[in-house]
């Protein structure tokens, strides 16, 4: 192509483009009526009937809308998939702005931090479809009754909802649960920050069990991973049979094995015998087998009472009954 012909072609293309841009923008503007609504039909982009919303809202929003297409909610082949108005309401006032106000009225149901829509109304949108299974008890849950909205934790329009990923879930939970945020960095902790255990491994945030646990009791929840502690044992240790959290803090501790207090103090909160159980705490000077000196160091009282969660020994000696066998 000789330069003049190339320039000519480029010039013509530029003209076409400029014209195209101008015409498109003009027609788009012309298509707006006085209230700002399009007269020309606008095609749905993601969800059924979303044209009324996506003609104005797109991914440039502070809370992008088109990315809902990447999610389960954007899978339109599933007949249960909602539309924009399923959650946000028909929002006629917002769309049509019949009063012609400078600032349009908000949608019927607004989510997000600055929403003025009552939380119960916001949650109702979700519960319309998600009331079943693990969420049957939502209305009785602590979260529901502390004005926690579904969208306080969930991001509905994004492909990656942080709270549904065990690697990032705790960041969402710690928005409110500050004590636990500090505790998971204690020397003894579950592998939460390592992404191997999530808050929802133990808690059902939508449920109404005590402490919103996934199972009906603390122990039943702990047994899902620590089944060897379930017993029953030949020699049961009473608090073990009742509630693991009598001795353990599952969110983290400065003491090994997530203990709430260090031996011998922890043990002495129930046991007040004479002999070595009454020992003072302290560090021995050196190697010793004196039981009165070994309650604080090493495994503490567990140096000898090694099967503290319960024992199955049938040994015909009294020692078998104190979790030493």
């Amino acid at each position: 192509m000789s330069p003049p012909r190339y320039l000519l072609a480029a010039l013509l293309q530029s003209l076409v483009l400029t014209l195209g841009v101008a015409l498109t923008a003009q027609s788009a503007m012309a298509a707006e009526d006085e209230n700002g609504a399009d007269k020309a039909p606008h095609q749905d982009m993601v969800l059924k009937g979303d044209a009324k919303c996506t003609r104005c809202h797109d991914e440039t929003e502070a809370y992008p809308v088109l990315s809902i297409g990447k999610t389960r909610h954007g899978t339109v082949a599933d007949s249960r998939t909602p539309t924009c108005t399923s959650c946000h309401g028909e929002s006629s006032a917002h769309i049509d702005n019949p009063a012609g106000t400078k600032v349009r009225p908000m949608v019927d149901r607004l989510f997000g931090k600055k929403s003025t829509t009552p939380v119960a109304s916001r949650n109702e949108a979700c519960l319309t479809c998600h009331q079943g299974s693990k969420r049957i008890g939502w209305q009785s849950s602590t979260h529901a009754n502390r004005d926690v909205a579904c969208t306080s934790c969930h991001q509905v329009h994004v492909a990656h909802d942080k709270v549904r990923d065990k690697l990032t879930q705790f960041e969402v939970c710690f928005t409110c649960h500050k004590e636990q945020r500090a505790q998971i960095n204690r020397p003894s902790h579950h592998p939460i920050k390592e992404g191997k255990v999530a808050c929802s491994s133990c808690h059902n945030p939508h449920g109404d069990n005590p402490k919103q646990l996934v199972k009906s009791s603390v122990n039943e929840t702990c047994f899902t991973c620590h089944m060897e502690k379930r017993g029953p044992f030949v020699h049961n240790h009473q608090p073990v049979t009742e509630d693991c959290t009598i001795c353990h803090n599952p969110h983290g501790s400065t003491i090994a094995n997530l203990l709430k207090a260090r031996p011998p103090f922890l043990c002495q909160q129930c046991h007040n015998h004479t002999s070595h159980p009454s020992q003072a705490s302290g560090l021995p000077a050196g190697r010793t087998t004196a039981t009165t000196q070994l309650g604080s160091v090493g495994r503490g009282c567990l140096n000898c009472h090694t099967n503290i969660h319960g024992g199955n020994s049938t040994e015909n000696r009294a020692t078998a009954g104190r979790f030493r066998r």
Partner: protein
Amino acid sequence: MNRMKWVFRLTAVSAALLAAYGSAQAADEPVQAADEPVQAADEPVQAAKPAQAAEDDEITHLTEPESSVSLGVGTWTRDRPHEGIFDGMRDSGAYGLLDADVVKRNDATGTWYTLTGRNLGLDSRELMGEFLRQGDIGVSLEYSRIPRDNPFRINTGLQGIGTAGLTVSGAGANAFPFTDVTLGTTRDLTQLGFYKNLMPGLDFNMSFKNEEKKGTRQWGRGSAPEFAVEPIDSTTSQLETTLSYAGEQLQLSGGYYGSMYNPAHGSVSIFTNGVAPSATSPTFLSLPLDNQAHQLFLDGGYNFTSATRGTFKLAYTRATQNQHLPTADIPGLSLPGGPISLEGELDTTLVQLGLSARPIKNLSLVANVRYHDVQDETPVRRFVQTNPACGSGQCVDNTPFSYTTLTGKLEGTYRLPAGYSLTGGIEQRYQDRTVPLSNANGAGGADTQRVVPMRAKVEEITSRLELRHSLSETINGSLAFLHSERDGSEYVSAAAGPGGAPSDLINPIHIADRDRNKVRLALDWAPMENLSFQFGYEDARDKYAHDAARPYGLQDGSAQLYSVDGNYVVNDNWQITAWYSRDTTEAFQLGSRAANGGGTGGLTDKDSRLQDIGDSVGFGLRGSASAKLRLGADVQWTRTNSEYHQTLVTPGTTSGLTPLPDIKNTLTRVGLFGEYALRKNSDVRVDLVHERWQTDDWTWQFADGTPFTYGTTTDGTTVNANAKQNSTFVGVRYIYKFQ
């Protein structure tokens, strides 16, 4: 409102792509372009075709699932004995960094194909694949490993680690060579999931988990303070099948949940090298035996009206433990004619009824009644009888414990004007508890087995009041007060502990009379559009009641939490977060100290004040230095300080013990990353992490700071707690993204 922006954007993108595409076309097809310039002008529809395609591509990019695969390498400069116990990067050196998140969807059928891999180059790897035709059927398969490495350096002569037969290093010539041993466990979880929608609103779900747990755990020999290692190889399986119905008014979810535990070993025998077999050698340590639980459950909810909902929960579980008791087979060890299996059985029943209602516009109510009954139906039988007279400690029966708990809760929230609401609630809990009255002496009478006083009934009533402000753009928050009182029936005395009566002088912490007061303040403040703060304060105080008959045990406790979080959006590209929290706990407990417990003279008192203070600071920065370069920084600093103040009524009688020093743990972690977009679909990411950990924890030390060493003449195992850790990680990875 982005109306014009949107119209312009797509048009502009189309135009730009058209310009590029058009030029390319012109370059590729010079003759055509040269020969038919008028066509281009006359046929704008043709020119719009690539524009439409570009627009479609843009929409596809914005609305279709994305996938990514990242591959790289990283290296830690030094070992991380404390911070690396779970993440598979405990040792210094290079690690492969491989992650995958492949998500494909067939839009026509709504079928998802997912393959997720994390840490595939590490010991903490996990891989999950899923097929899901949304709303119809789905299958998933997942594998995950959780490693846990013991953080200590253990030098021992113990032989047979990881097996059911251990031999402790003997004295003198019978000492074994000592080596450093590494203890740790791995949990390999395989999970199969299945889902099927049977009809509108009716779903079937099945989940089967199988976990293989392998490895070793620090243990003790029992009676003798000697080092031992527990072989924890075992298999746990969990099967859950659920049929769920969700209609507009009625929701039901019921099914079966079964869990099975199967250990590889039933007991461990521990010898001492050079010590001849006797009544006490070897030592036979028991291990947890296999157990299984089967549960049937049904949950339901019904919307009576749009403002009134009722719920229920029903569950029945039977757990059993019937494995043959391994130590019963050892000649001469067990009580002749004693049980050879426990025949353990735990039956648990749950019945819960709930009601939530909004009887008037501004008032909502929640009520719950819960009955939870754990009955240990294991038969009580004699396992130890060293003397038919069954004096203290001479006879031992198994001791089943049962608990029946009835809880009632009523809570109401009234919506006040201006975004305020007031919540008041009351919860009452009654518990019937087993108090084993040992029949070890064969005819009731004095309990010769139980060493702690217990209560047959415990009650607790909790009331709470909360004022909340919400729905404001600038200030939201809540102020809550909680008060609870716990008491119970008369204590059933225990006198079987060493020394008899002193065992009875204590209120055990979990059943003691207790008053609890708690205040919680939460405040969210957004003074500007781009600046927000979150303040939190909690104060909890427990007071335990004691009388002259039982003066010992925990006296009082308190906990405070202060926290402040800030978030500042600098501009569209940069955001800063920062937070600080301080938590303090304190417990004061009283106990007795006997002459044969290391004291002198008769029974005297000792008190202990335990304090813990934790300070945590966090800082985060996220931003884009350019359209292609994303940067981030995270700083985490945590320090805990534990203090142990003990006062002995008879001072100076510590029998060679040194008072416990304070313990300070400090963790600092600084992470930086940069992610540069090489192309639209590929990035390169660099991570830099510096981690410092330090402790002066004396748990594994003697008073002079030397490592704790087991035994005096035998064993000799030393445990070194690795008090310092200082390591840096550099990682580079290539990330490829596609749709």
